[in-house]
């Protein structure tokens, strides 16, 4: 084990995969000379050269498409789109070409691509630059969607993404890049997709999050324990597709209450999926409706106070829990 920050853990994963498999190469906006807009790819250009760490023009559709084409050829490209906000320009390439070619070609074509992007608000970047739309991509069969919340998960899941033969949308929360944590050192530290992790055990209520919102959930659990003597279980989904509902349902059958915490807007968002599945699979165990703590239903304002008010907070989670007891 060694302590590192999320951005460094992600870089380690990329480095190890570049070394291990010469089909792996990286392309994206400012991943080379600039070092990556969140410094994840810093130093990789120097180490691996221009052919395998490729700065691209600002042309999201084009570069995702190039990645898909290279994956069809048997390469294992990673395309970095800087942020999820810019992925909207590559939306068709992702949800049509990457997601569907395997099925449409009756299995003749496979697309082993990793598409990385940063998500989340909280940095006063304004409405167009603060999306949390992990659930958007999770909606499409054919894609896998991964959203780590800790450096260890970041490394293990990213390495796993390169071993998967399917298109993987790998989404990193901007607020997590500086997070420190213990990361296992062994070469083949991988984390299987579709396994949620229980970050904190508890009896009274299940808090469910992923990526950034897991941390609100943990802080809320601390507050609940300290101030209200409520013992919350916290589940980190880690991947949205595949989604580990078994772990969630088992927990809810124990606690009889659940709150989904998500940075995205509630209306029409992924929290509704989790809430609905809990209702479907644990109806008789539920003592209260599953609550969803999400962003307010507004485009993200720039002003700091308004932005904080728009984002879900640990207090919002505590409030939701208290309301259901």
């Amino acid at each position, binding site marked *: 084990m060694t302590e590192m920050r999320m951005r460094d853990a992600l870089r380690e994963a990329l480095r190890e995969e570049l070394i291990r498999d010469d089909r792996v*190469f990286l392309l994206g906006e400012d991943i080379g000379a600039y070092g990556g807009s969140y410094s994840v790819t810093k130093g990789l250009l120097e180490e691996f050269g221009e*052919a395998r760490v490729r700065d*691209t*023009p600002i*042309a999201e*559709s*084009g*570069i*995702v*498409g*190039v*990645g*898909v*084409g*290279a*994956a*069809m*050829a*048997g*390469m294992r*490209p990673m395309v970095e789109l800087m942020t999820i906000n810019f992925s909207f320009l590559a939306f*068709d*390439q992702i949800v*049509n*070409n990457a997601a569907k*070619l*395997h*099925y*449409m*070609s*009756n*299995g*003749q*074509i*496979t697309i*082993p691509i990793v598409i990385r992007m940063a998500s989340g608000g909280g940095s006063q970047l304004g409405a167009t630059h603060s999306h949390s739309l992990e659930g958007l991509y999770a909606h499409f*069969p*054919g894609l*896998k969607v991964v959203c780590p919340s800790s450096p260890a998960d970041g490394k293990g899941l990213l390495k796993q993404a390169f*071993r*998967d*033969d*399917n298109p993987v949308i790998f989404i990193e929360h901007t607020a997590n890049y500086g997070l420190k944590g213990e990361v296992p050192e062994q070469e083949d530290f991988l984390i299987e997709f579709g396994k949620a992790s229980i970050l904190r055990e508890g009896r009274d209520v299940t808090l469910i999050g992923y990526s950034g919102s897991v941390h609100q959930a943990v802080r809320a659990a601390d507050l609940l324990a300290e101030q209200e003597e409520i013992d919350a279980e916290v589940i980190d989904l880690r991947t949205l597709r595949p989604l580990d509902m078994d772990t969630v349902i088992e927990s809810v059958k124990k606690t009889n209450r659940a709150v989904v915490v998500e940075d995205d807007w509630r209306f029409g968002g992924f929290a509704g999926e989790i809430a609905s599945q809990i209702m479907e699979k644990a109806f008789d165990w539920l003592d209260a409706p599953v609550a969803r703590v999400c962003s307010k239903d507004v485009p993200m304002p720039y002003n700091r106070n308004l932005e904080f008010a728009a984002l879900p907070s640990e207090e919002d989670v505590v409030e939701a829990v208290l309301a259901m007891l």
Partner: protein
Amino acid sequence: MSASATRQRPAAANGVTPEQMETFLHQMMLIRRFEEKAGEMYTKGKIHGFLHLYTGQEACAVGSINVLEERDHIFTHYRDHGHALARGLDPNRVMAELYGKADGVSGGRGGSMHLYDVSKNFHGGYAIVAGHLPLAVGMALATEMRREDAVTMCIFGDGSVAEGEFHESLNLAALWKTPVVFFCENNLYGMGVPLKESLSANIATLAKAYKMPAATINGMDVIEVYREMKKAVAHARKGGGPYFIEAMTYRYRAHSMSDPELYRSKSEIAEYRKRDAIERLKKAMLDSGALDETRYRELEAQVEREVDEAVEFAERSPQPALSTLYDKVYVEAGQ
């Protein structure tokens, strides 16, 4: 091959042997007949969905794809039957795909717009206009990185040129000098919109602005297409980067089976039919002695048989089992 000695002259004249010319003629006739039959079967309710026929444009597919080697790659758009047949995909399995049957090249899951045969490096059949252009660039980039000496051909229509991905793809291809041949079949219309109302640019001039060579050629002359494509492929293969061909052509049929063709006149169609690529090659071959009427009728009969067989094959092929619905959404095993 020895029989060709007696037919030396025409070959010398245009760089194409009589055998090749016969191949071209056969393929163009096959495509023509295949498309007519497909249209017929659509009308009979055997085929559904969108069906975009290639009639009129045969010289484009045949002249260009015959230049490619087995190791080369092809990406095309939804008007893809002609390209598939020219690449040597089994007509039976192509027809079965239009029927949506289990023996179709895409197992009945893709349909007319999504023909794939990866064993022949035929990578589809894309129904989102211009969406496959960057894929072709990516394929070319990969072969280039692996030094595979392969060329990727990317086929699309004039209507696609206005899409943003056209621009992004040409730029990326030129920037990274990928071995890709962009092959634009300019049939003057994107659905019902004439090119001059959708593009404020000359296509080849625009392509040249990205610092790649570009040629506008007669897409109704299979020999010209073949010769120009040879230059393009040679250029890309020897590391010169992308090459752009704009082939002027015309589609005889409606955009798809549901198009009432309100936007063009019967006389315009008649005008272009006079320049028919099959007639042109046939006449040239008859004139030069590379073909006689008997052989032509043999070819006609052969094509008729091939297409009938394709229909029979498609009719007999089973429906994909309902139990396969969930198969191949994901690749099961990791690498």
